[in-house]
């Protein structure tokens, strides 16, 4: 899904070069024509060779506006199934805003080296449920899909499209820029952790997830590297992990003694610490 914007870039370049008007149906010769562009959309809504994927938050918004279509529910099924199984993986692996979080973390460490003071405000993660509720209520009351204006994957998707097509990102860039400054100066990964409405949905859905970071205690030297690297204030070192864990695997990668692993729990076969 991350590649989709790239595909569009190629598509757009091919278009402006006058190669064809419908590159993905005409350009990729071997594939059967679907009568529509074969790939379109950003993470918020994706069409890929006839498969329609919808962000669960988009489905919730559409339902909140008091109308119904089976295609909205069906579109959200793949994402829901994946999150129920893999946990909040979307935030760590798919969401384009993860790049902004990385940039703001880099800015934080740079500022620390320069001696500039930054804050790390810990807003309770449950605040995101409030944001989700307010946005869904606003959708229900006004009948307008407002959630997409405050949900970074949707905003970034549009902003990228605008940059490619029209050469300017518009207000979306201001929103993302403001979030970057917030994450940099006020609270580390603060928006994702405490305010993201889509994150709230994934947080709820990821509760039954059987994929977890597990510590093999004998190998652990209590160095604390994993706790430091985590954006979401999880503590693999003390086995304190909740549904905010986005399964990004940074703690696993940073562990000097390989004491951590992403493990499929259940079935009773794997003991904690067993490598997958």
């Amino acid at each position, binding site marked *: 899904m991350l590649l989709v914007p790239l595909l*569009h870039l190629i598509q757009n370049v091919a*278009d402006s070069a006058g190669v064809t*008007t*419908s590159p993905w149906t005409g350009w990729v010769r071997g594939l059967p024509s679907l*009568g*529509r*562009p074969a790939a*379109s*959309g*950003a993470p*918020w*809504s994706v*069409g890929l060779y006839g498969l*329609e994927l*919808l962000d669960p938050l*988009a489905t919730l*918004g*559409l339902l909140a*506006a*008091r*109308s119904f*279509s089976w*295609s*909205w529910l069906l*579109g959200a099924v793949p994402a829901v199934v994946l999150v129920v199984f893999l946990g909040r993986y979307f935030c760590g692996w798919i969401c384009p805003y993860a790049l902004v979080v990385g940039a703001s973390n880099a800015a934080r460490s740079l500022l620390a080296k*320069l*001696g*500039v003071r930054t804050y790390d405000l810990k807003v309770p993660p449950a605040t995101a449920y409030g944001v989700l509720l307010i946005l869904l209520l606003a959708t229900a009351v*006004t*009948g*307008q*899909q*407002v959630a*997409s*204006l405050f949900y970074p994957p*949707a905003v970034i*998707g*549009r902003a990228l*499209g*605008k*940059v490619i*097509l*029209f050469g*300017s*990102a*518009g*207000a*979306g*860039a*201001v929103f993302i*820029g403001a979030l970057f400054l917030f994450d940099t100066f006020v609270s580390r990964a603060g928006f994702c952790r405490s305010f993201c409405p889509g994150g709230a949905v994934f947080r709820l859905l990821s509760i039954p997830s059987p994929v977890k970071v597990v510590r093999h205690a004998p190998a652990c030297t209590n160095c604390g590297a994993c706790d430091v690297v985590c954006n979401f204030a999880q503590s693999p070192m003390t086995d304190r992990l909740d549904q905010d864990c986005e399964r990004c695997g940074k703690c696993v990668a940073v562990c000097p003694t390989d004491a951590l692993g992403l493990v499929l729990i259940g079935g009773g076969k794997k003991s904690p610490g067993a490598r997958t």
Partner: protein
Amino acid sequence: MKWGKWDRRRVLSAVLGLFSFSALTAGLRVRRASAEWLRPPGALPPGDFEAACIRCFRCAEVCPPQCIRFDAWLPPAEADTPFVVPADRACTLCMACTEVCPTGALGRIERQPDLIALVVKMGHPELSKDRCLAWNGKGNCHLCHDVCPYRNQAVTLSGDRPRPEFHPSLCVGCGLCEEACPVDDQAIRIRPLSEKTKAPS
């Protein structure tokens, strides 16, 4: 870190930074502004449309003439929803946007000219005979007739000195005539559908 030293290099880079940031955020600029903006073809009636549009940008992405615009500098009700500004760039009635819309905010329409003529109603034409060069005698123009996908139906020429006449019931409102009109303040405008003139579906 010392903040007091504003030498030439730092001032220049600050100006450059401000410039690139404003270029990034300025939003789209239309070549010729129009009083009103239209929804893409197949759009649900006002109200239903806003409830169904998740502002995903996919219609704009597949639009071959890139006539579908998303402006984020609008009130939340309309911010980043699709609009066509025909004076800037008009719709070519390819129906690609209706094929990709994931929520049905743009209802799917087959690419058949006869069907499109029946189903699509983006706006209705309004001709100002004062401004029209053929009517006010300042020219012999019939560009609107030439570019119309439904010429001799939606636009007809009549008289020994051909003058355009518009027939709203046969016009789909694509706006190609408005885009083509050479008058600065276009003589032909496609007006959005008000509640009263909503097309029967």
